[in-house]
């Protein structure tokens, strides 16, 4: 695990990918911070929340090559034929991408220091958003890694993880549409109005229940919900396991 982590993490800095990703992140974070700073009040919490919406771009950049590139070069054979377990490979790769996020986050730490030095507040709400930021980063990284495992083409992998993350960011919108659609379908099939409404509401609720952003929104207010974090972790672990199974499948697949 350590071997994989070390290689992947260092490889970000052996190629331009890591620097470019950090540069993009620094610019975006810098822009958000500057616009808050120039208005005279800085809320680190809302900066971190804004940065979360760039996961959809940054996570695919970071994760697209993690496994797809190995498959393309044939270096994945090393994971199967040396005494490392495949799950440790998955963990090592996730940790490497996660560590890159931590490096990027140094930007925000600098912003926090500047804010506090300029008499601003760094409150419990901001701490909450930072916690959510990292848990969410973990979840999206495992999604990205999964996307990287199912193909040997980096571009395809990037697109898949982009779509996956985009969907999870738009779940609340999707739930609205799905609810409306369910309602009209039910009405077409002659279901009574109140029943159709209940049905569409149930669908709406079920979809938005999956929304990681809704689940964690109270953190910025200083309300820390353990179950929301459990949700993020469990989805992340689920995708890690799926990735592991995809790798494992190559071994026994007879297709």
């Amino acid at each position: 695990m350590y071997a994989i982590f070390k290689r992947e993490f260092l490889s970000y800095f052996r190629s331009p990918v890591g620097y470019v990703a950090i540069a993009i992140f620094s610019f975006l974070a810098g822009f958000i911070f500057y616009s808050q700073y120039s208005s005279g009040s800085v809320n680190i919490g809302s900066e971190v929340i804004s940065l979360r919406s760039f996961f959809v771009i940054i996570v695919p950049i970071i994760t697209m090559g993690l496994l797809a590139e190995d498959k393309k070069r044939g270096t994945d054979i090393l994971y199967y034929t040396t005494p490392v377990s495949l799950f440790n490979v998955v963990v090592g790769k996730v940790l490497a991408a996660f560590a890159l996020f931590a490096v990027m986050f140094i930007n925000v730490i600098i912003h926090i220091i500047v804010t506090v030095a300029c008499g601003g507040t760094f409150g419990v709400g901001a701490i909450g958003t930072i916690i959510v930021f990292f848990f969410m980063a973990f979840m999206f990284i495992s999604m990205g890694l999964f996307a990287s495992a199912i193909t040997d083409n980096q571009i395809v992998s990037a697109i898949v993880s982009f779509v996956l993350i985009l969907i999870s960011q738009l779940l609340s919108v999707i739930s609205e549409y799905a609810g409306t659609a369910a309602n009209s379908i039910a009405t077409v099939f002659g279901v009574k109005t109140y029943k159709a409404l209940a049905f569409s509401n149930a669908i709406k609720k079920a979809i938005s229940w999956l929304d990681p952003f809704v689940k964690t929104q109270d953190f910025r207010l200083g309300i820390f919900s353990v179950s929301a974090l459990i949700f993020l972790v469990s989805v992340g672990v689920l995708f890690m396991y799926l990735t592991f199974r995809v790798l494992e499948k190559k071994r026994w697949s007879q297709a």
Partner: protein
Amino acid sequence: MSNKPANIKKRTHDRAHKLKLYSIGSIALLIGIVLVTNILFDGIFGKILTFDFSDFGQNTISQESQEFIDSLSPDTHVRIVGLFSRPDNVSGTPYQYIIPLLDDYAKKSDGKITVEYYDLTENPTIINELDPSNAYDLASNAGNFVVEYNGRIKIITPLDCYSYDEEKYYYTGTYYINSNNTEYVFTNTINMLTNENMCKAYIVSGLKEDTSFYITQVLNSMSIIVEELPSSDNFVIPEDCDLMILNGPNADISEKMYVAMSDYISKGGKIFIAVNFSIRNVTERFDRLNQLVNQMGINIDPAMINENDPGFQRGGYVIDHTVIATDDFSDYYSVPYYHATYSRSISSYNNPNSSITGIPALRTSDKASLTEFDTNGNAIESSTDTTGQYYVAMYAAGQGEDPAKMFVFGTANFSSDEYISGYGVNDVNVEFFKSCIRELTGSKSANAINVAVKNVDNYSLDNTKATTSSATMMMVIFMIILPVVLIALAVYVYTKRKNL
């Protein structure tokens, strides 16, 4: 030889088949575990495992509210109804501090308080359910909250739940939220609605006064129903008036009003008057109002107080100063020091027709002086010479079973929106005001539940440090230098390693 391949095929597929089953099975199992765990944590442990670490516990009800709720009888059922569908994301909306707190009420009230949300277009029947006589026009209150108990309702808007700094608004045109009063408002509203013996106050309007938004809240919190009593040609004081308030009038009362109010006093009426000395009433002599208060042995002087004792001055201004409760009123609040600005001198008046005399309530230092003004609003030069102790508030009470009672304040700082919005409903002045109201209404007003207002997170920077030039510096460092250095590093590493 001929039947062997089929045999092999069956046997040879076993391992791959098993692995496939194991793979799919384990994934299905894990998804199941993830779902069950999340539903379990979400539904059952969700509430227990949610912790409010916010500053001031924004989203948790305080001990005071909790004790009040516990004191309600178990069969009490208070409904809090939001006239909108509950939003998923409350961050950055006025509901940010309201909805999570209401959840806490529901959670900690053992079913005495329920919180519901109804979209008025989807559930129009809720209007009739809450307000059958349509007295409150709930249809136009979408987005607001209704608190209902035993058929009695009160509407609370999100704006009611915050205090805004009116002075800052006056200068900048922007609302700055000063504090979060959500819990104060809701707890006291519930207190008011569940209190059977309610007393009624009328605030006289139409005398060029400012709004009385915050004292309405404060009075509500004391279970006092507040209504407006507009000045008009057929001014009548209603029968159910337990308390009349003139909150900072800048114009004198009419003859008709004087007559009605005199009549009210003679029947044992209770009046609270606050008249400060400002640019808006410098030419107003308040002759008729004076006649009224004279009946109670009090006089409103056409003179402004200058506090010359530096120990009493605030910020070095003679017109912004500390006042002290006199011995008779020292028990009104735990500290006897209050804050007055642009104070008008209130003195006792020796009324030949009455034995009632005014008792000083708030006084200045010994070194104060008065600036008197003539009828044109010009200061009389010589008037400032005499230094001494002056009074900023006086109290008078008649005799008998239910005597007339009156407070006259020479400052607006105890009841004006401008002051309360800036200093909050927990300010010492407001506490003193509440004691005065309690004095006037006697047992009829309940004790307010003293919920501390909560400060709203304030993210503003120190102006002296966050200057325009430092902002430019931030932009240059974080948006230009840092990314450019990183890109340069990328290019450097790439070219260097490329040729290794």
